[in-house]
């Protein structure tokens, strides 16, 4: 099959391309990229032509932090529905967290995920193995076996590794594989029973707070351990301004620390919790404007390497309950693009730098063969129009779950087509 993408502006940060180009894809592989009209199309056999006029054509986005809930919680999301949600959001590679049931702490679960992704996914799915068996924080999982089966990193996401000795050993052990440990940084003894950011709003609402220090302390602990042991640390969904400073300081020392931020953490504050909408409940929680300012600084100066959604689907039965009892998390794949484009509008990031944080940089950190439009590579491509305005409608999400605080938001920037391995896996139904 042959696909020709014409008249778009190609932005490929990995190859320093940011100009009008046409792209030719043959049998799923990027064959050539040439200035408009310069592609040799004479001998093409009935190519499918995508007119990308007014659009940006970039590598398919990479989300290093999603929960696809399979196996175990298929009523919330499956690998199939998760991949459809990803494609609709412009993502062609995702990394799935191991807090499934059973936990992805062994080869057979990793293999199951990969085989389901292959038969039903359409996009690239990368399993993240557990740091500890059963996410219980007691004993290391078989990291070598997980790596051999296809795990690209390790994390106990949602269950931070509280035991410092165990975390130290995890850093040491993981050095054999040079794979990053992804920490959900939260000192659980400071957040027990908490369900939102601690501050004036939690005080007014009478909800128990989760202080930013719970994040800061663990971020610093891990940096301190890493400095001694070596290994690699990736801080998941950074939400505290002080944690951004800690990561910046660690990077200045040359330590192998990277971090990510989720779109909701630079878009919403804890003010959104007023009214007790459980779709504002996530961990880490929505913070303050002060934290958002620091996060934007961190995005700007490169302290925050990548944007990842922490796509956390929950069924309405898990959300339509008392705020205190609601599950943590929101879906993120299908709202990520317009939210990170706001950073471009606000001049926090250039368009190219914003795309880089969702393509080239995550690929580099996690050593994925993706995130660029190099000739000869598999064609994972996103075509989006940055100027289209519309309202977010959760009922149209491809995810099985609709738990988003952005329902009804008026936003700008829409996915038109997503191609994975040269195949169109999503086209905007309004086109």
């Amino acid at each position: 099959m042959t696909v020709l993408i014409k008249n778009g502006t190609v932005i490929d940060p990995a190859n320093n391309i940011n100009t009008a180009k046409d792209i030719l894809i043959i049998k799923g592989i990027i064959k050539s990229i040439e200035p408009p009209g310069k592609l040799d199309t004479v001998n093409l056999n009935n190519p499918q032509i995508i007119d990308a006029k007014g659009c940006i054509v970039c590598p398919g986005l990479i989300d290093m932090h999603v929960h696809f809930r399979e196996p175990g919680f298929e009523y919330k999301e499956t690998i199939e529905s998760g991949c459809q949600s990803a494609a609709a959001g412009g993502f062609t590679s995702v990394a799935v967290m191991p807090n499934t049931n059973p936990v992805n702490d062994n080869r057979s679960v990793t293999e199951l995920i990969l085989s389901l992704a292959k038969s039903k996914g359409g996009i690239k799915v990368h399993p993240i193995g557990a740091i500890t068996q059963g996410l219980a924080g007691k004993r290391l999982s078989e990291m070598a076996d997980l790596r051999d089966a296809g795990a690209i990193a390790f994390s106990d996401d949602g269950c931070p590794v509280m035991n410092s000795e165990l975390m130290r050993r995890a850093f040491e052990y993981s050095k054999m594989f040079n794979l990053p440990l992804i920490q959900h940084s939260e000192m659980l003894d400071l957040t027990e029973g908490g369900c939102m950011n601690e501050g004036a709003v939690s005080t007014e609402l009478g909800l128990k707070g989760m202080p930013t220090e719970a994040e800061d302390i663990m971020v610093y602990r891990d940096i301190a351990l890493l400095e001694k042991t070596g290994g690699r640390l990736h801080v998941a969904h950074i939400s505290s301004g002080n944690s951004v400073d800690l990561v910046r300081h660690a990077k200045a020392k040359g330590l192998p620390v990277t971090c990510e931020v989720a779109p909701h953490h630079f878009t919403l504050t804890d003010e959104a919790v007023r009214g007790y909408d459980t779709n504002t409940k996530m961990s880490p929680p929505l913070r303050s404007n002060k934290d958002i300012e620091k996060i934007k600084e961190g995005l700007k100066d490169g302290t925050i390497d990548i944007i990842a959604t922490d796509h956390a689907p929950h069924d309405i039965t898990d959300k339509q309950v008392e705020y205190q009892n609601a599950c943590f998390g929101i879906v993120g794949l299908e709202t990520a693009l317009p939210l990170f484009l706001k950073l471009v509008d606000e001049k926090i990031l250039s368009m190219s730098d914003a795309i880089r944080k969702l393509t080239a940089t995550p690929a580099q950190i996690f050593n994925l063969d993706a995130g660029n439009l190099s000739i000869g590579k598999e064609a994972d491509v996103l075509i989006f129009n940055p100027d289209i305005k519309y309202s977010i409608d959760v009922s149209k999400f491809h995810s099985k779950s609709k738990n988003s605080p952005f329902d009804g938001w008026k936003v700008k920037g829409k996915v038109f087509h997503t191609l994975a391995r040269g195949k169109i896996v999503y086209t905007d139904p309004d086109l």
Partner: protein
Amino acid sequence: MIIPKNILGTKGLSKEEIVTILDSAEAFKEISTREIKKVPTLRGRTIINLFFEPSTRTRTSFEIAGKRLSADVINISGSTSSTVKGENLIDMALNLEAMNPDLMIIRHSHSGVAEMLSKFIKCPIINAGDGHHEHPTQALLDLYTIREAIGDLHGLNVTIVGDITHSRVVRSNIYAMKTMGINVTLVGPPTMIPLGIENMGVHVSYSLEDAVLDADVIMMLRLQTERQNEFLLPSIREYSNLFCLTTKILKRSKDDVLIIHPGPVNRGIEITLDVMKSDKSFILNQVTNGVAIRMALMYLLLGGNNDSLN
């Protein structure tokens, strides 16, 4: 004066609305002093008391208020409700609503429950206490008691003492008192004063001795002794030494200071028995007034007519 459809909190109630409620309560208070304590105002109306948390005072007060207005009052407590069978709270409320009640009174241990349910059911709701968030009828009966004893509320100094963090009574009183022009000072150990409470327009003090000096009203809160595992206090003994309202401390306050307490009282922990029994204490007046306030709210929410009071 039209008051809101639901009473979820005192936040957002205007001065005029609060005055209307207090004035109405005055008319209803008299009914409870009659030999025949019943008027036909809400005859044929159904009120459901849905209590997911233990309560003596508040539940009984709502029940008596409803019955004195001739409404049919149904009590449902947490232990007899179907949520123990795993029924979703919203489903349960929808099922109760399907039986066409005219008013639901809801008490729940989690903050925000009354507000959440108000988004799903059309039946008017009175929040009888949600977690650590609001307890509006308590604040209204406190204001009523203060107004009855002192008169004009504007410019009064009220000192509230105890575990501020975990108190819904405090939050409802702050909103209502600020609206009525009252100066509020909160007193307690810093472990029980939540972050950012000053944003609600109150003063904070850690010294009971200082905070009683200018007070026109001292409100003592119950120390929730079941919270002793939360690292908040070294001991109840030390708490008492620092924050118990005693005759000795009262000597520093104004002669005509008013003492109130939302109950239940831990005798000797936050207030000594002699202070509790003194003529400065209006704790039992609060309970009496609570019935009147709840009768007034039921009447105002359900639009009963004035003629039926006689």
